[in-house]
């Protein structure tokens, strides 16, 4: 089998983070190369380098014998490297066939040759066992079918290399079967495929080779036949604990947050308790429904049934303002969109949530707010020349600190941190951990959603693990370790059950 693609010493640095560290990887014609790793292991970054979204700091990509010069999304696509991302890039108002041929329509003169496109689309869909009418509008399709169309679209311009990023995350088992069916067809066609997934059972079902990455480094590559499930999990888990976790267990205070049988769009029967002086870790894979739970109980999203209690009193549905007054606060996952007003100053961003508490009369005393903000800027050592600096200028870590400061000022009782250290360099991380501890000292309860296992293990006192919208396990930090948590997160604790489905 001939090599179609090869990564040579790919390295990519982000401010404070070494995302990829000299990765060497190759892909043969007609093979499925599964890439595994924790969130943040660098899988997606590597693929983004391949697609040309990122330029590597070092190393080169060799495609069909020659290196990809100044790669860009368009170039890589022309070359025949197609990505299938989780978030779909389809135009909802367009028909399936228009989406599939968007940008390279077949034309008769200046008219687009709908008949031909129809036939080809039809053929394509049939070959993938999708029984949809090519003239259907994409917006009328189920999410699963939209995903299939996305794949079909990639195939339409006969791709040489396909990258599946979590393709099955929103597919039903039947559809997954169809997908695998198709993947096998593609193998016969000699298409090389990278396959990123969190469903380990899939590795054995579809994969030829498997590569495990960790902290942006290549751990091992083996034939699937030669590797065992537990080896994989250990491979993924085997991170050395750096001691950047200042966390010391305090005595448990009273129950501050109680989530009872919360049911919603993306999660069901969620029960979570959080106690004062404790960090309650909420672990699981991306898309397991952790953030959704957080958003729902904070009141920015709606939920179907269930209750959220703070200190025993009920938090009204979809009423964030009330939740804030009751002392609940959420530090959202993506701060740029949800946490900050980028066009406003550090001061305005930090003070915003506390305004009502600080100035009950409604009139702002600028000196006071300045003083307050300054104290927290110093406390959190937020790196900004002045509090009038626009947050847009600040680095990711500093921005996160601003968001934290925002809630510290409100003197909230319950803090929900969603991925508190995402995209933050190590130094800043410790700051934020210390900060959490400080909060605990003040008798706050913290719920920490994190995909970083070490963080969860290092910081939490109790750990809930979510998998596909459900809480699948609850541990005391003492009895938890990376492997067990991963097993639950991957849904491997009921291994056989998952496999037969």
């Amino acid at each position, binding site marked *: 089998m001939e090599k179609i693609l090869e990564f040579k010493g790919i390295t990519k640095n982000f401010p404070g983070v070494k995302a990829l560290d000299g990765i060497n990887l190759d892909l043969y014609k007609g093979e499925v190369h599964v890439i595994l790793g924790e969130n943040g292991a660098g899988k997606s970054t590597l693929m983004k380098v391949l697609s040309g979204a990122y330029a590597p700091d070092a190393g080169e990509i060799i495609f069909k014998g020659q290196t990809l010069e100044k790669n860009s*999304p*368009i170039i890589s*696509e022309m070359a025949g490297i197609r990505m299938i991302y989780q978030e779909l*890039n389809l*135009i*909802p*108002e*367009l028909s399936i066939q*228009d989406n599939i041929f*968007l*940008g*390279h*329509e077949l*034309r008769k003169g*200046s*008219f*687009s040759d*709908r008949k031909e496109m129809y036939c080809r689309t039809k053929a394509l869909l049939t070959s993938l066992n999708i029984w949809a*009418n090519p*003239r*259907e*509008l994409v*917006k*009328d399709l*189920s*999410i*699963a079918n939209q995903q299939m169309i996305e794949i079909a679209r990639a195939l339409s311009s006969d791709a040489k290399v396909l990258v599946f990023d979590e393709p099955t995350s*929103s*597919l*039903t*088992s*039947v559809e*997954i079967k169809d997908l695998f069916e198709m993947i096998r067809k593609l193998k016969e066609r000699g298409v090389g495929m990278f396959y990123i997934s969190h469903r380990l059972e899939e590795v054995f079902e579809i994969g030829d080779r498997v590569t495990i990455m960790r902290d942006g480094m290549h751990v091992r590559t083996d034939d699937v036949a030669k590797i065992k499930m537990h080896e994989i999990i250990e491979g993924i888990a085997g991170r050395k604990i750096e001691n950047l976790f200042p966390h010391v267990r305090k005595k448990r205070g009273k129950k501050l947050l109680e989530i009872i049988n919360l049911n919603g*769009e*993306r999660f*069901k029967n969620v029960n979570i308790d959080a106690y004062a002086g404790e960090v309650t870790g909420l672990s699981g894979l991306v898309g397991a429904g952790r953030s959704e739970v957080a958003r729902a109980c904070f009141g920015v999203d709606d939920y179907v049934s269930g209750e959220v209690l703070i200190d025993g009193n009920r938090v009204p549905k979809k009423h964030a303002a009330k939740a804030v007054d009751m002392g609940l606060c959420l530090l959202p996952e993506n701060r740029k969109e949800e946490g900050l007003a980028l066009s406003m100053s550090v001061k305005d961003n930090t003070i915003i949530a506390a305004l009502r508490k600080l100035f009950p009369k409604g009139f702002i005393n600028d000196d006071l707010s300045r003083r307050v903000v300054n104290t927290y800027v110093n406390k959190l050592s937020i790196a900004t020349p002045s509090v009038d600096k626009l947050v847009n200028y600040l680095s990711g870590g500093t921005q996160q600190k601003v968001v934290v400061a925002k809630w510290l000022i409100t003197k909230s009782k319950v803090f929900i941190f969603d991925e508190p250290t995402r995209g933050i360099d190590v130094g800043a991380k410790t700051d934020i951990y210390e900060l959490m501890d400080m909060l605990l000292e003040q008798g706050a309860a913290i719920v920490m959603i994190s995909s970083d296992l070490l963080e969860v293990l290092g910081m939490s006192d109790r750990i809930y693990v979510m998998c*596909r*919208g*459900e809480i699948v396990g609850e541990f005391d930090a003492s009895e938890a370790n990376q492997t067990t948590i991963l097993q639950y997160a991957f849904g491997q604790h009921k291994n056989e059950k998952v496999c037969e*489905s």
Partner: protein
Amino acid sequence: MKKSRHFKLSSLPNSIYIFVIVFVVFGIGIDKFWSPANLSTLLLQASVLLTVAMGMAVVIMTGGIDLSIGGIISLSAVVAGTILKLGGHWILAILGALVIGTAVGFLNGIIVQKMKVDSLIATFGMAYIAQSMANVISAKRTVNWEVLPQNAMIKTLSGDIYSKQLGQYGQAADVISISYIALICVVVMIVMNIAFKKTRLGPYVYAIGANQETARLAGIKTNTWRIGVFMLSGFLGSIAGTMLLIRAQSVQPTLGTGMEFYAVVAAVLGGNALEGGKGSVVGAILGAFVLYSIRSALMLEGISTFWVMVTIGGVLIAGMVINSLVYFYERKTLLKAKLRATESIEKGDVR
């Protein structure tokens, strides 16, 4: 070709509801509303708005807006009129109008796409500019010309191609007639719909409106297309200007006043969301018809002008209310679907 999903609530142009309501209510409530003469007049009068509304719809679908249409109408008409006044040939005059209209559209496109000025502002300013140009060229006076052989055609165009007396409503109400202007409008409608349905225009407009970045990654020259769309709108605007010129056999410099708003209203009534990415040319056409049928109906009934205004405003809002109701409904169903999907994932069921 088979439109499998055409009768799905969400995929209908929203104006269809109001359109039906209006036509039924008026049809019943007002005698002569369905009379051939009324309908053919309706088409004739709506022609101008129909023409610009289609252009506006396309612009809106790309996520922009074109408030300069009114100015473009005035300007192009004035230019054509002036050419006729100078004894120019009628073809020359019309060409002149089309060229100037398209040029202004091009300018809009450049300002929006290259200078990155929000289209609302850009065209808002351009409206002032075009209107002033019209005033300058016409010296603020009505432009008229003596009928010469080389411009006699303009006169002819104002007439009917075909007109036949039927019987039932009695006299004037039964004359069914197709005027040249209506014909032009119909042709434009057909061309636009073909262009939108059968060429790349449609898909690209949706793609750009939905997400410029995705469109660019799909290899669409977004800049070119958006500028092109503004030019199209300008072009249609100048056609409308010419129509008004033909109708009045003269040009007042303030000809196009207020037209831009009517066009936006028609387009939006037609379900073209201002944020772009959804809507249809057909919808805009229906929207324009709604507006005009309301006006003509109320005029037939002899309702005072002011009530016509109130009604139009009300219908616009009513239309939007219906739109958003549909939107709520859609979201509900979508949510249900999602829930079902997630459930089926949980218990990897067999459909």
